[in-house]
């Protein structure tokens, strides 16, 4: 066996089957983050509410989904729920598992962001006559997003790679497709390096997006520093 097969490496680098896997990985990540943000936002609001039962509910959810491995959650969703008559397809099970799991982590990130906004901001908003929903939507959340973005960036980056766990329920994403192709010619290193390059491209893509978002939500602070300079 050759130590490194350049021909094989370049062939796999543009292999449509692997590219398809990269698209699946990207799709799973985007959908899981979008779903996770919605559920996570709700959870963090429950967690910060004044109703004891809602707080307990959110705490219980976060406790369970952060406290158990995603792999176990996926197996339960995919092969346990059907025994109770609830049957999801592979794609649905994978998405559901990722969203439920991600939501638990994002809920805590969002809660941290909200708590990071000075309480004076909401007092001022209330004094101006905004109700609690308006205060949250127009005053607290826009400021919280700025605090949330760096941690959210970590989450997205991690999630891009975590999606590979869904292969346990036969989801064919980037890493599983890589493993399947390895069986063809046993070019183990070549294929894993190709997969690593794809993952790097995807995480770099997110880096660019994250910088854009940070710039947008940092506008207020940027203009202050400029006016201070004058």
């Amino acid at each position, binding site marked *: 066996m050759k130590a490194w097969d350049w021909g094989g490496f370049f062939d796999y680098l543009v292999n449509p089957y692997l590219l398809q896997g990269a698209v699946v990985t990207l799709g799973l990540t985007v959908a899981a983050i979008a779903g996770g943000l919605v559920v996570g936002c709700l959870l963090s609001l429950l967690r910060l509410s004044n109703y004891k039962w809602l707080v307990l509910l959110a705490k219980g959810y976060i406790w369970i989904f952060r406290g158990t491995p995603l792999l176990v959650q996926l197996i339960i969703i995919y092969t346990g729920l059907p025994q109770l008559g609830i049957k999801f397809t592979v794609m649905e099970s994978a998405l559901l598992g990722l969203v439920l799991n991600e939501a638990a982590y994002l809920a805590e990130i969002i809660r941290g962001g909200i708590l990071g906004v000075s309480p004076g901001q909401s007092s001022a908003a209330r004094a101006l006559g905004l109700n609690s929903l308006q205060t949250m939507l127009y005053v607290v959340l826009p400021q919280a997003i700025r605090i949330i973005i760096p941690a959210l960036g970590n989450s997205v980056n991690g999630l891009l790679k975590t999606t590979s766990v869904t292969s346990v329920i036969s989801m064919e994403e980037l890493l*599983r497709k890589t493993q399947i192709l390895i069986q063809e010619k046993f070019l183990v290193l070549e294929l894993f390096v190709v997969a690593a390059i794809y993952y790097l491209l995807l995480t770099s893509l997110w880096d660019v997006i994250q910088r854009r978002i940070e710039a947008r939500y940092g506008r207020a602070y940027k203009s202050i520093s400029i006016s201070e300079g004058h």
Partner: protein
Amino acid sequence: MKKSLVNLNLRTCLTLLGALSLAAAATAQTCTPKVAASELVKPGTLVMSTNPTLPPMQFVDSSGALKGMRITLGDEIAKRLCLKPEYIKIEFSAMVPGLQAGRWDIINTGIFWTEERAKLMQMIQYEAQAVSISVAKGNPLKISKPEDLAGRTVGVELGGFEERMLKQLDQAMTAKGLKPINVRTFDNFATAYQALRAGQTEASVTIDSTGAEYAKRGEFDRAISGLFPTPVALALKNPTLANAVVGVFNDMQKDGSYAKLMAEYGLLANKDPIKINGPTK
């Protein structure tokens, strides 16, 4: 003159000492390894990889101990080579790369013999296996021939011979103008069967003896068996070690223990002497 006499005496002493220590080692070990340490991944040990998700061939019992025909066989080979058997439990997909990388001496997981694999490794055929199709109890989909799998969702372990056979079946279906098989690959057979149990897949592909074992346990029916009969092998990297293992097999054929082991698991025993089965040129 005197000097050389002293030298001679010293040498005799050393030889004597050496002989004594050797004798002491021999009594402690009761035998000397039949394979040099340089031919092994770990001196004095026969390291084998196995994926224990295939009862009754290889599985883990409730106490965590490895059991099954291939474990009995591996232990016997190690014993006859005067080595300590050691097993690494790992997914099949990691086995060939791991062997190449010198992580273990033998793949002892019931690897099917194929020409491509025999180009990469020293393979010793010792058993024959065919592929079975397991379905839910009662065979609700009335699957009785491979064509019945057209358009069905079928689970299989990733990277094994069974997966290749299933993909071949799928190609045969589409060539005949039938609906393709929806092939789902899992990390191991246990998860593939769990998916069948949950109704996520409609059939599962495995080797005959495992299909029979699951049917015996009463959870699944074996709808089709005896597909693609193929020799099963041990796979090694080191030719010297492979020859030593062939020697053990030949001894086991002579004393009847090989035939007895195969019969115990309902497997066909090789009548011809066992040898290294390289690629046909």
